[in-house]
């Protein structure tokens, strides 16, 4: 750790002449107050629009000259910026992240231009009924906790937020003590640390950022919602409040999710890169093999505070939506009441073991995992999870199924094509 509080993790991997740099901030949409929803995501956009040391026109090309891939994302607990490029780009990458941490411009005209880019991003998402339903179910599942609002924000807030709102948020949360820098690749650790000190050491520590402190009250009854809109396909989602990454129930819930919908592993970044092994999963057999759904999936991700386990199903051709919803709920209730078999648990654990190996297949993915877990629970959890998963028993899975798949703990939503 640097004197200003910046956490630094360097992992040497000399398999290819590449380096991946990830700069993580413990700020996401859970840190937003009403009226400023979407601010953390918009700040992320603004932080690609020039600094005092890198002109706006150069910023998005800075890494390209090294053949690099760069990106960033904002989610509920974190915001991150990444680049993977040839190893000779390391110092430039560190320079860029140091600039981003301390010296972004927030030009008024650029802010207005980006407003319409973000509204366009929001509207592009709304073109997808599945995405729309996801937002509504999440907003219904939470009453108090800021996890309820979408990371991109509500349209009214995006229309009224000011440049000063954005800049103020940036100044509060983009401090060394609120960040973790991860470097993975063909580097020498000591030299890399010296470069980090040179680029980041002069940035002032800054005060501890304020946090929205709210605990979601226990849900007291099932919630249901329906969206009726023009569309071609019906969708059903069932969301249950679920444990945070640090909760002892997290590993058994991972196994339960894998048994019900197939193992996704632990890497949010790489989880979209391929299909999930799920043909023998409980809900796939009940809904897809059962002829009611064209697809089914589950989502359970490591989060800093209790979030959701969400099951999604796409209606099969000609299948009434109510029939799909009732079948999904029946399959979930069966897991709640009777648990899952030893065979299902063992298969789920074996899948998770394979996925965890396969998802760490690049310096980019390894860099993501170290930083992501740092922002939700501390990197030690990442190292512990394979062992914890191996120790999960059928009884553990039955216990978390009975606890979390309770009727009173769920929100059921469906999109009905008009």
């Amino acid at each position, binding site marked *: 750790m640097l004197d200003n509080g910046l956490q630094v993790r360097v992992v040497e991997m000399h398999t290819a002449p590449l380096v991946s740099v990830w700069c993580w901030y413990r700020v996401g949409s859970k840190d937003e107050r009403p009226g400023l929803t979407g601010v953390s995501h918009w700040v992320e956009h603004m932080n690609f629009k020039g600094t005092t040391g890198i002109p706006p026109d150069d910023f998005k090309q800075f890494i390209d000259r090294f053949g690099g891939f760069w990106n960033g994302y904002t989610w509920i607990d974190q915001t991150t910026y990444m680049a993977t490029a040839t190893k000779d780009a390391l110092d430039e990458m560190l320079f860029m992240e140091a600039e981003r941490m301390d010296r972004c411009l927030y030009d008024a005209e650029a802010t207005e231009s980006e407003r319409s880019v973000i509204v366009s991003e929001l509207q592009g998402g709304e073109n997808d009924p599945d995405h729309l339903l996801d937002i509504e179910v999440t907003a219904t599942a939470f009453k108090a906790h800021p996890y309820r609002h979408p990371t991109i924000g509500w349209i009214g807030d995006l229309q009224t937020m000011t440049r000063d709102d954005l800049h103020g948020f940036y100044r509060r949360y983009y401090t060394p003590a609120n960040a973790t820098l991860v470097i993975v690749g063909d580097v020498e650790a000591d030299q890399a640390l010296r470069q980090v000190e040179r680029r980041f050491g002069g940035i002032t520590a800054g005060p501890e950022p304020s946090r929205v402190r709210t605990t979601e009250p226990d849900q007291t009854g099932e919630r249901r919602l329906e969206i009726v809109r023009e569309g071609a396909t019906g969708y059903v989602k069932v969301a249950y409040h679920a444990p945070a990454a640090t909760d002892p129930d997290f590993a058994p819930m991972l196994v339960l999710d894998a048994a019900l919908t197939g193992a996704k592993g632990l890497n949010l970044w790489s989880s979209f890169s391929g299909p999930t092994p799920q043909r023998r999963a409980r809900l796939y057999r009940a809904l897809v093999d059962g*002829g009611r759904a064209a697809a089914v999936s589950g989502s359970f991700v490591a989060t800093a505070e209790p979030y959701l386990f969400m099951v999604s199903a*796409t209606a099969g051709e000609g299948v009434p939506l109510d029939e799909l919803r009732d079948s999904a709920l029946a399959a979930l209730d069966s897991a709640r009441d009777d648990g899952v078999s030893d065979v299902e648990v063992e298969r789920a654990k074996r899948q998770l073991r394979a996925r965890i190996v396969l998802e760490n297949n690049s310096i980019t993915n390894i860099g993501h995992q170290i930083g992501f877990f740092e922002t939700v629970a501390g990197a030690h959890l990442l190292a512990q999870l394979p062992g914890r998963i191996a120790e999960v028993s059928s009884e553990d899975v039955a216990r978390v199924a009975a606890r979390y798949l309770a009727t009173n703990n769920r929100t059921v939503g469906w999109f009905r094509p008009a």
Partner: protein
Amino acid sequence: MTPTLGLAPVREQLANGITLIVKQTPTQPAVTISAAMSTGSLCDPLGGEGTAHLLARVLDRGAGTRTGDEVADVLDLHGVSPSITVSRHTTTVTCDCLAEDVETMLELVADMLRAPACSDADTEICRGQLLTRLRQDEDSPATRALEAVMPLLYGEDHPYGRRPKGSPATVQSIDRTQLLEFHAARFPPDRLTVVLVGDISVSGAVAALTRVSGAWRGGADPLMSAAHELMIERLAFGEPWSRLPPPAAGSRRRLVIPMPAKAQADIVYGFTTIVRSDPAFYAYWVMNNVLGQYGIGGRLGRSIREQQGMAYYAGSMFEAGHIAGPLLVRAGVNAGNVDRALESIEAEVVGMARDGATDDEVTSAKRYLVGSIPRSLETNAGIARFLQTTEQFGLGLDHDRTLPGLVDAVTVEAVADAARRTLRPEQAAIVIAGPYEES
């Protein structure tokens, strides 16, 4: 920009005609299996559009001596989920597995391609999934625009102009017999390329693939094949792709697909380009990077997204293939900005065609493309993709070493020439899908 890479993969031809390419990378106890059959949606019978896609969905639902449930048991037990993709020219099964499971998975993948069961029950499940996918595509402005531009560019009767996934009517009409006939005629071992990358030796790979596929002999059943040729009328089996008809002669075409309930409109503005074997390919690659990729969407992204704030995405994609593939400019914009976005696209296209790219732009794009090569080869799956492309287009086993030089040799003049040849607004095909109506 000196090439320093050296994959040095090993290529072997098995007795039954299967091509095997192996690259050992023992850094992780895992292997990527990529098995590509040179049969894609272009081979769909006329009136049977969607056959290749439906077959691909059924491939992993019962194969060889295993039932669908038994295949699922093996896959799920090992945490493997094959990705089966269909392009116009290929059907590819790809999966990552632990090194300890590679022979089991290889046998399963070989069985899928050699002897899919295509049971009635599984075909019905997969047909339902494909029909739902078609409905979802029809509800997506981005997909509608992308699909609609192809018949505009190539002509409705051209193999590139047909819908790769078919229509609900054609998908409904494909029965099990047709699937099996299609498979018998179009999935012989000598059209299969298997690439193995990871913690596996060359000798181990050859032995494993020989063991699991050695009994797979011969080409298509001649009788079945003859019947199939009568059915498809157009493409004789084994005919080189280069004999496909060229794109339709171009005149400017414009199509609006009104989708009033949607929040955003998607624009596709397309041209036809060149074949992959054209020596100008690398100049086109650089030109496309300058136009619609470098930074965040090249010149297009800078104008439409960064300067005017009109779109979340704006850029271009270029795909040269066995025939002249498309270059497609794409943007997603608010309906009120469609006309302005189109004007901006046209301005960038015309400017690039008239003036080419600057020295700085070409240098930057070349640095990016050369620098991105090691990154694209970072994972086993990335190497497998690269080697499949290399094999498909006959680029040579040393292509990872020759590629930097080929890009480096591109001149400003060659980029300008590529732009002049292709970016001709009077021949563009334009599609707008979303909450927009022609004024």
